[in-house]
């Protein structure tokens, strides 16, 4: 992977030059502030006696929102966009194949997601310790944070490929995607919403099963099926867009 020029470009810009540090810094500061407030302010839930009861649950939900949003923005090349080499040049000038480009960009997406999860890990581990959350729940949370980052992040890759020169269109699309799938979907069917699902899972609450054509689908199955479909369709769209770009050279 080190030899992949797109991956190297991302490493150079975000890590060597430090343009990604701003994102990581904001992310950590926001998460730390939220976690401290959740701990300090008693819960409004009359059944729970203080904030610590919900510290891990709410911190995980906050981390989820922040990580997914950060990954979407980083992948969408919203930071120092003028420094990124255009796809046309990779295809024409560097003679990279679709597979090379996809490999580099997806590896970069995975690296950012892993770094964000790694950086927030101590905060979530402390929250889990204070809340007395089982180790299984903490590990599950880390796993789904990575999974959601990829599921939603590929759509930012697709957007960057489809609207490479239309920065505003990409930004609007990314924000609409985030608001509709990560926030508003909870209003229609909570099990497909990642925040609602995580809160219910960590709160050990059963979610309503989906009854479809007489078949009863457990909420967890529906949730993961939806996100695998989201990931798959995002990858398909991204691949198709890359091939279309390659075909234009």
């Amino acid at each position, binding site marked *: 992977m080190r030899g992949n020029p797109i991956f190297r470009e991302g490493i150079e810009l975000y890590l060597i030059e*430090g343009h990604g*540090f701003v994102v990581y*810094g904001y992310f*950590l*500061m926001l998460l*730390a502030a939220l*976690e*401290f407030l959740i*701990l*300090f302010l*008693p819960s409004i839930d*009359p*059944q*729970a*006696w*203080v*904030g*610590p*009861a919900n510290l891990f649950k709410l911190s995980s939900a906050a981390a989820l929102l922040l990580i997914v949003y950060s990954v979407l923005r980083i992948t969408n090349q919203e930071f120092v966009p003028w420094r990124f080499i255009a796809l046309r040049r990779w295809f024409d000038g560097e003679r990279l194949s679709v597979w090379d480009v996809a490999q580099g960009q997806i590896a970069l997406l995975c690296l950012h997601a892993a770094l964000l999860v*790694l*950086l927030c*890990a*101590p*905060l979530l*581990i*402390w929250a*889990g*310790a*204070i*809340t*007395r959350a089982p180790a299984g729940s903490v590990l599950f949370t880390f796993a789904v944070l990575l999974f959601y980052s990829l599921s939603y992040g590929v759509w930012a890759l697709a957007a960057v490929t489809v609207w490479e020169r239309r920065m505003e269109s990409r930004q609007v699309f990314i924000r609409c995607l985030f608001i509709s799938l990560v926030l508003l979907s909870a209003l229609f069917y909570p099990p497909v919403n990642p925040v609602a699902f995580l809160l219910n899972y960590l709160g050990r609450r059963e979610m309503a099963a989906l009854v479809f054509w007489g078949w009863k689908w457990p909420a967890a199955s529906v949730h993961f099926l939806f996100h695998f479909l989201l990931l798959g369709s995002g990858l398909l769209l991204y691949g198709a867009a890359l091939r279309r770009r390659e075909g234009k050279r």
Partner: protein
Amino acid sequence: MEAQVGFHGLFQLGHPFPLTVNLSNSGRPVEGTLQVKVWKGGPTKGIDPYPFYYQRTVLLAAQSQKSFQFTVDPDSISRPLTVTFLGPAGEASQDIDLRRHFSPSPLNLLLTENSVAPSVPLASNASAPLIPLSISQLPSEARAYRGVSTIVFYEQSLRDLSKAQSAALETWIASGGAILVLGSIHYALYQEPAMSRFLPVRVLGLKRFASLPGLESAFKTKAAPLKNLLAQDSRLVEGKVLLEEQGTPILVESSRGRGRLWYLSLDVGRPPLSHWDGLALLFGLLGSAHEAERAPALTSWDESVISRLLWNPSFFSTYVPIRSFFLWLLFYLGGLSLLAWLWLRRRWPRLRLVQALLSLVALAGFGGYLHFVRGGNIPDGVLVASTLLESVAGEYAEAQSNIALFSTQRRDYNLRVESGWSGLEPVPRSGVSDAALIVREEGDSSGLSFPLGEWDYRLFKVRSVARFPVRVELENRGDRFFLRIANLGSRDLTECWLVVPGQRFLLGDILQGSSQTREFSAAPMEGEAKRQEKIDLHDIPFGDKTRELLMRYSFFPQEQGMARWGGGAALFFGWVRGAPRRIWVDDPRVIAYEYSLFRAVIPLDDEGEL
């Protein structure tokens, strides 16, 4: 296994009663658990029925027989009471239908070693059965007597009365019970120290009376005159003489707490009194034995009070590791900032910085985890006991203890309650079905066992009557009040206040063993604006925020109209410093907070005294 319900098979409906279980072991030694299941809740309580268990560990020697006494308090008798012995070889259980055993009226108990029981026509409880008992059958828990109106002693030696039985009887009297001691020619029995505790007189010997003119004049022509009879000679120790002959007390009444002690020097079990037609008139002088049970002190203890308590930063910062969490945050974010700075300045090799980053994340993650899981000042639980001591007659106070046990862990708790408690009720929470409660009898205290989940809590209310010798007297002389307070107890009263209509006065601390006399103006001073008739108790400040919250939302709740004090009564209250623990958990991982407020309400019609 045999079980006997109540007192010879009878108990008063709606009150706790003793349950004696006799176990016979015809085989090898066996150890097991004896368990009694009753049903609480139900339609009368407005909540779903739930099982309530009483347990005791028992050890039976080979070829032996043993009796175990429980005090049980079912809310409903429509479901059977179940007694179960759980042993290593299996279990044996027995269902008892309680509907065959209840009495709608309170019971009277008779303790006598005489084979012939005297006629005791107590006027106040004509329908109540008189049940003969032996000393060994007397329960050793005060709450077992809650369904008993009067206990009659006649020619009974109390030498075999155990300390626990004696303490239970004293607690029961203080909470409203009555003891009637009938005199006898065997006067030496009445000079025993154990008996003297329940006598308002000191028995000196026997005295012969040719006639009883005082008695005859009291009943005039309603009963035949009594001639030539023996009565106990005695000297008054406490209370008042209702009837006397030639300076000898015949009938004496004394109050102790909310209860009564009566002494009749005549031997009603022997002629001529045993056949006397005026016995009913004589006992009629005693008045009401069973005082109507007083409503418990109006304190509020529910989720809304707990929410307010938890909003208090000084309260939750004691068990939430805010400070250490903040320090860990500073350490981690500071370390990351330093590494980022070193990275951008290229002071260190990149590889070493990556290793340093991974080390920092690992150190912060695992170090913080160990700190917060094993230490971090997070206790397993927090016990809050808030007790209102309401002054009753004499030197006694009725205690209503409100308990909240919070848990940060999923674990079992054993809440210990001091002996003498009379009512223990779990406070139901809306939408939550709590686990079953088990009362374990352990020596001189009871243990209440129940599980709690992490960050869960349970609320209870416990009532008891205890000696609390603080006397408060208020004399109203029109334009001035004279307040006399004597703290004869072993605890200091702090932050004391007196509230009279339109005024409130800070009295400060009243130390143990001290007394104070204070004078206050009843009328507004010249030039002072007209005072409001009612005083808002919520405005009264205390040094401790938790005390203020308990005062406002638990002891004097606004919803019950107690926030504003006025009308025809004065109010004295003060916090008890170092109050004796009534409820506790024997576990250093559970933090306990105890708050006790002593309160005396003094009517202002005449000279008030409490």
